[in-house]
């Protein structure tokens, strides 16, 4: 069952976007496709959340945007990670791992 927007933990979408973009310049459609593929259709990002998030991250200076040609030759807006964004990704990633580890620990211990 796909997890909808409301079920995603606050801030998680940002982390996902940063991670996908870290793999290389990509446009909004590409990001939504990759999140879907990699999560094996579990995570489906709504466009209404994706684009505001992209612009918010760009405004904070974590993403940089550039217009370029897509694989089928159309004009598209490509996002890539800035130096600041790379630092942010590292810290969010470690935060997430700590959190996830802690949650898992609790779930296992409580059993």
């Amino acid at each position, binding site marked *: 069952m796909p997890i909808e927007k409301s079920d995603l933990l606050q801030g998680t979408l940002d982390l996902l976007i940063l991670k996908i973009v870290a793999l290389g310049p990509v446009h909004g459609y590409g990001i939504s496709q990759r999140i879907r593929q990699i999560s094996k259709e579990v995570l489906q990002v709504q*466009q209404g959340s994706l684009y505001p998030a992209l612009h918010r991250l760009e405004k904070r200076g974590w993403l940089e945007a550039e217009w370029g040609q897509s694989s089928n030759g159309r*004009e598209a807006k490509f996002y890539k990670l800035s130096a600041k964004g790379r630092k942010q990704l590292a810290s969010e990633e470690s935060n997430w791992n700590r959190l996830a580890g802690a949650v898992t620990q609790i779930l296992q211990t409580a059993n």
Partner: protein
Amino acid sequence: MSWWKCLLPKRASGTQLDSELRFHIEELVEVNIARGMSPEEAWRQAMLEFGGKEQVKEEVRDVYRVRFMDTAIVNVKAAIRFIRKSPSFSATIILTLALGIGANSAVFSAIDAILLRPLPFPEGDQLMWLEQFHRKVKNPMGRLAPTRLEDWNRMNSTFQAITGYYTEDESETSGILPEKVTAAFVAPRFLQVWGVAPELGRDFIPAEEHWGGPSAVLISDRFWRSRYGGNPNVLGKKVTLETVQKFSCSIVGVLPASFLFPDRNVDLWIPVPLGNPNPYANNRDSTWYLTIGRLRRDVTLEQARADLATVQATLAKAYPKSDGDLGVAIDPLKEETVGGARKSLWLLFGSVSLLLLITCTNIVTLLLARARQREHEISVRFSLGAPRSAIVMQLLTEAFVLTLTGAVLGLIVAGAASKVFQFLAADLPRVDEIRLDARIVLYTLACSVIVTILCGLLPAIRGTRGNLSSSLAQTTHGQVSGRHPLQWLLVGVQVMLAVTLLAGAGLLLRSFQALGRVSPGFDPSQVLTFHLTGSYAETGNPKALAQRIDGTIDALRGVPGVEAASTSSGLPGLAREYEVELKFTDGEANPERKILAENRFISDGYLATMKIPLLEGEDCRPGLGTQAGGALVNRSFANTYLSGATAIGRHLKALMDAAFIGPGEIRGIVGDAREEGLNREPTPTVYWCGNGFDPDPFYLVRTRTEPMSLAETLRRKVHEIEPARSVFDVAPLEEHLGEAFGEDRLRTILLSFFAATALSLACVGLYGTLSYTVDVRQREVGLRLALGALREQIVKQFLLQGLRVTLLGCVAGWGLAVAFARILSGMLYGVSPTDVATLSSVIFLVLAVAGGASLVPAIRAARVEPMRVLREE
């Protein structure tokens, strides 16, 4: 609602976002088509999956927009909460600011009305003040002869029109009792130059401006209302002026209430006809008209000056005797009207801005202390991930809300303050035009923005600079001692600025004292002065004029209570500047030497009235006509031009203005008197005896009691012998002398007030900062007391801390006062702008007051109970 959209960054808007989203949809469509859907179905499914393009766009835009508005609103709400949470702290700041900004706006409203705005006439900047001047001497010959005015008007190419006027105080006798009116006699083109039309009726027609034409008069709105009750059928009624002979003219129009030229007292404007065949009207040496011109469009002042210089050069060739030595001076009418007040006004504005600066410094100190108390709150916000800019914005918003409230209150203060200013500055030009309008409100708002930046930025930046982890870890209780160099620096700055203002006020006060100590050479007390209406037409028969005035003086002398009576063309102690080049007609030893002297016209009895001593020879002889009365010279004149030789019996003659001055025999030498102003050294002066020169001199009456108590008796006496003339401007001589220093008094009073306020603000700053230091160091003090320190030592230590900063501020203030001393030069009398006595007494005062302000917290520090403080830890 759309004005703030321009604040949005361009990135979020328009086609870029549109094509970004379209790309996404088209990719979806392509995938759907690849799955075998029809293009229409593929499009519909894609749109469905995308979920409302417009909605997405709107949400993306919100990323940029809503944050801006939201944070502003949130910040303002937080600021209001903050203000309500600490009402006394906020009230202190708001009230201080209200006073600082209010005083500043009030003075600015005066500067705006008097100096910045154009004169209240259509295209007032085109109006020019024209004067002729003699190239060799300085004297008030600026008035033009009618023929020369017409020449200038005809021959120039840079003015739309040139006109002139002179005023006379007359009796108007068409009513039951004679009424004193002020009439302006005007040259042709008068209203054309002003660009003003009558509110009722019409301007003069050409026939009325020519000799032998119908008589006409324009009346003022005030005269229309007071004399005719605002009756709209006033046109055609007769106004009768009666001085020598009856002169009636019919009213052709009423001028608007806003037209107050030459001044607010003028009731009538009467045209002086052209083409008067009488020789007096065609004399090129006569000095009738004060002259005004309106420049053509696109003509500069320099062009006009060059143009009229050429015109006058042509006239000099045609009439070498009368026009040969004359030059032309042109200045904007506004400059002529308000130029004198400029220096005082900017001085006041400078002082009141320094005061605002002190206010700001004071508030910075308060906010800094406050920011230290909020360190904890701020570091918590930091650790929750708020960016520094957001916290700085929040602190600035707090400052802005405080300042804005202060500014709004300040406007109310300014309203009251400008009333006070108008009262104190009644002698300044254009004071009636001062009002609080949109420009002043705008200025006040601009002030509050600048104040916010000045006051808010430093505390906001400092308050958010701290390393957040360390500041969280360490609580303020752990601190033993805080040095706060910045706060102390600010206190020093306040003291410095206050000392500068006090020095200025002190110098002005000392200058006033020095003026009071001056011995003027005459005795102004118990002298009543007044005017009696007279007409220049009377100068046509000097003998009759002299007899008329002599008769009045004799009648005045007969009134019980009168010690002496006389006339003078100018008041003693008030500048007249009638300097003329003279010549001894009975041979001059050194013909190269120029004899320049001030000239005054007096009647017999002047010396007795003014108590000026006669040193040699005899007084003016009574009852003689014009020149027969001879002349008196003062000691300076005798010493400068007749050193060693006898003065009595020499004959003097003027090189110009011979119609009015001499020739005459020197009959006596009198003591030097400060006739040209109490603040001016006596200069060589010639007193010409006789009453045939001036139809409207000042009457001077020395009384045995308080002068005004005799005013009514004298008025009745004059009415008995001169029923058609009116007495006006009755005032003691001392009042006139006081008015002469009205502007000096204004700036002295206001500057002293600003300086006193500055000193109290600086003391509040000192007190506040020292109290804060004492609070922070309570534990240290408690510890030292517990270890055996004496309470006197504690008091001494804190007292010295306060006094040390004050002393440094005083030294810096002394330097600043000396640096700014130049501004005051020309406003001071009998005291140097760097007067050591004044400056050191200012510093003594500041140290004494600062000592008082420091003593309270210092004593409080020493009262600390060691056990209680240590237990609290």
